[in-house]
């Protein structure tokens, strides 16, 4: 492994994180909270460490595949660790493990929280929490690529390790331009949401918090009751639309901007994504109508909001869906395993992978009927490479494997089954709230430190799509 190059990239990442903390510092100073010093200390530490690494002069400037993976996984762990320091220094979250959990949850756009009373947090920290969603949604490392003056070809490895989906690719020949285009689209979506939310009656600060939370598909709110606090239909609709939009592959927006709008609606994954959402909404509405809510309108309103925020792995709640009947809760739990589209800010397994798994399974069935027949799996009219197919199957197996191990480990805390299963599903899929104790009105604070670390691992593994993080445990990986 090219250690000096990895260190150097990590240093650059830390400097970028320091820069990213400046808006939060501004908020902290503006609101005269107790958190100014905490941000200042953290920024100073980040800058010091980052500038130290700038003096490294690597002999070999190539970034190989494994270096890219190392930068992504270690980078995310470091970013989360330093992102946790403001919580810890300010005393708002007294335990370091809790602070780390909160920061990981922010960067990975999960939105699970150990904080029981959000309203008591200083404003600077609330802003920082949500801002990490925004950065983490599109990717911290992709952000550094978009900002830095020039970058080498090896950075494609980093982008591959960080971007969600089985086959992340570039939009245009230049990696830097691709990163800028992605962040450009992301910016436009964010700004439009902030404006619309402001118009719907939320304060500017709240509009920012909810916009960061929904475009990053994170889910941190600044009210304990989440969206339900406002009881504002307009805001709910806006958030639903933007969550939905950010669960779509961002490269589709680029094709649409180039004038190829038809392509947008022809995309197979997009169609699957929309169909799953529609079916889930209808089933849940039928189930909760008359049962929980008396009006069709109210039932539709809450089911739509909940289905969209859960499938996009955002995790906002307009009502306490933990009180819903088992059928609806089961559907929501399954949606947590599906997630958004590849190349979006959403987490979990992703529609594209499930679609390919399904097609592959269909082929296996056909093969039993006609053992000598040759079938290829097609996606969007093109044959899918066998390597991609096996990578997708392996991914799914590993995903489930980690899921089971994590469920067993956190069961040691002695909580009920629904809580354990949904807590791991929600963290591994980067959703946020689960069911039972960790439901929309609950929090993760009652878990032991050990369980919190396990779930932090799950969140990182889910965001980086498992492999980069698993590689850290391989001895081969560290050898020269």
């Amino acid at each position, binding site marked *: 492994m090219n250690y000096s190059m990895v260190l150097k990239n990590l240093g650059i990442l830390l400097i970028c994180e320091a820069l990213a903390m400046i808006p939060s510092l501004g908020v902290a100073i503006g609101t005269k909270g107790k958190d100014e010093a905490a941000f200042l200390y953290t920024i100073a530490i980040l800058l010091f460490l980052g500038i130290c690494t700038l003096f490294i002069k*690597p002999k070999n400037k190539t970034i190989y595949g494994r270096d890219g993976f190392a930068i992504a996984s270690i980078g995310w762990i470091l970013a989360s660790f330093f992102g946790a320091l403001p919580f810890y220094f300010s005393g708002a979250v007294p335990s370091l493990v809790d602070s780390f959990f909160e920061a990981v949850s922010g960067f990975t756009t999960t939105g699970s929280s150990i904080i029981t009373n959000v309203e008591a947090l200083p404003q600077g920290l609330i802003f920082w929490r949500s801002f990490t969603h925004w950065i983490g949604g599109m990717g911290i490392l992709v952000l550094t690529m978009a900002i*830095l*003056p020039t970058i080498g*070809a090896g950075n*494609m490895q980093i982008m591959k390790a960080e971007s969600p989906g089985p086959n992340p690719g570039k939009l*245009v*020949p230049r*990696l830097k331009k691709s990163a800028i285009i992605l962040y450009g689209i992301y910016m436009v979506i964010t700004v439009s949401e902030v404006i619309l939310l402001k118009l719907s009656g939320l304060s500017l600060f709240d509009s920012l918090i909810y916009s960061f939370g929904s475009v990053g598909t994170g889910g941190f709110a600044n009210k304990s009751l989440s969206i339900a606090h406002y009881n504002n239909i307009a805001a709910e609709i806006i958030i639903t639309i933007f969550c939905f939009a950010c669960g779509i592959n961002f490269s589709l927006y680029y094709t649409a901007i180039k004038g190829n709008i038809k392509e947008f609606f022809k995309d197979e994954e997009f169609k699957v994504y929309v169909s799953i959402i529609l079916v889930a909404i209808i089933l849940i509405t039928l189930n909760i109508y008359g049962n929980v809510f008396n009006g069709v309108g109210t039932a539709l309103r809450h089911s739509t909001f909940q289905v969209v925020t859960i499938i996009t792995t955002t995790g906002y709640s307009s009502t306490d869906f933990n009180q819903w009947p088992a059928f609806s809760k089961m559907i929501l739990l399954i949606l947590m395993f599906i997630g958004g589209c590849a190349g979006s800010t959403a987490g979990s397994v992703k529609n594209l992978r499930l679609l390919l798994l399904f097609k592959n399974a269909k082929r296996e069935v056909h093969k039993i009927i006609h053992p000598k027949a040759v079938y290829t799996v097609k996606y969007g009219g093109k044959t899918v490479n066998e390597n991609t197919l096996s990578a997708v199957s392996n991914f799914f197996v590993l995903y489930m494997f980690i899921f089971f191990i994590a469920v067993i480990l956190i069961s040691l805390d002695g909580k009920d089954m629904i809580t354990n299963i949904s807590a791991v599903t929600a963290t591994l899929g980067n959703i946020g709230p689960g069911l039972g104790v960790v439901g929309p009105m609950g929090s993760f604070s009652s878990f032991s430190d050990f369980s919190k670390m396990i779930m932090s691992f799950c969140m990182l593994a889910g965001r980086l799509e498992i492999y980069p993080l698993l590689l850290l445990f391989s001895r081969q990986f560290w050898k020269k």
Partner: protein
Amino acid sequence: MKIIIVGAGKVGYTLAENLSKDNNYDVTVIDKDDDALAKVEENLDVLCIKGNGVSASILMEAEIVNSDLIIAVTGSDEINMLCCLTAKKLGVKKAVARVRNPEYSQELSIIKDQIGLDYVINPEFAAAEEIARSMGFSSAINVENFAKGRVRMVDLIVNDEMGLDGKSLADIDKESKSTVLIGVIVRNNEVLVPNGSTVIQKNDHIYAIGNPSSIYSFCKYHGKNPDKIKNVIIVGGGRITFYLYKLLVGMGINTKIIEINGDRCHELADVLPNALIINDDGSDEGVLKSENIDTVDGFIAVTGIDEVNIMSSLIAKNFKVKKVITKVSRTNYDNIVNHLGLDTVISPKEITTNYILKYVRGKSIESLHRIVDGQAEVIEFVVDKNSDLIDKPLKNIKMVPNTIIATIVRRKEVVVPHGKDVIKAGDRIIVITKQQKISTPSELISKVNGGLQNELLNGIKKLGDIINM
């Protein structure tokens, strides 16, 4: 500038590598082969598309409509031509194709017209030309002509007999009273742009540049007397040999061809009726002995297999053949080949890349020669009357770093310039530079000084450099 390269083979890869280094070029590579594409995608900052480069839909996917240039360098001439034809019809501005079949190359002008090709590169012919040029000046590793032959650059290896070892360039100038400029020194594969105080060491490659007669006397003075070559053996009867034979015969050199494949020998005998063609293994010492290798003064190994070329060249070196030229297609042998003591190594891939790069860089470049994988470039420009360079003493022009103006050519006069010399409109200048992106003479002028905005820009650039180091 948007460039599409069809074919991710040896030439396609090198082109993509060199073009993608320059931020002005956005490169898209199209190939049918997954593995070749995977290699490109992993190592280079370019966009890869899998598919057939002739197909319109693939070309459309690569945004051919907005592209400035398509370069077709697949293994097949026909595909290359068809690809350019489709691309031209779809609206690409310029098309470049590699066409290597001698039968087509004779009808090149018709093909160019009909298909609308803007530039055709024939790597074998280019390689043959380079070999022939180097044969004409036997003591140099490599010979390059500029300004239509009025300026010559030779690449020499410093050995004990030259008496240059340990001397500084200023001393050498005084001693030999020559008007030759040593413009580049290559030491252990590192390129130095020297100044008067640079000291030459043994085994350095020095690039001497000047007018042909002073180059000749410089070489003679330093014991590198370029003897005339009379007898040559060529091992391998491929396309390069076909072109090379004609060129060598034109130079009055006796040429023998050794080719292992009987059928190919017959084909060659058909097209080269007067040639002496021997059907035998050219890497066999016995065969070479029986063909009197100890009496020839030139040996050229151009078979299709690098290993055979290297081995037979080593045999020839062992027989003290004066000039040995080896074709090596794969660049991953570069490091080893340098240590084997083979002096002139020709790589058709490099030559093709140089020609196409020169074409891509634009009109103001008259010729371009790249040294050690493009670490340094020797570029010939014609300075027009609007340039900022003219009518100023050179010492008053602030140049970009690591760059020198090696010669000024005014009509028939060739000057190795000093601080007081002036460039006039219409002069040709030959520039040696380690900067990579220079494509017009005005880019030679350093923009470091002047204006707060520039200061800021340079600051950002420097920060970028620090981050990227």
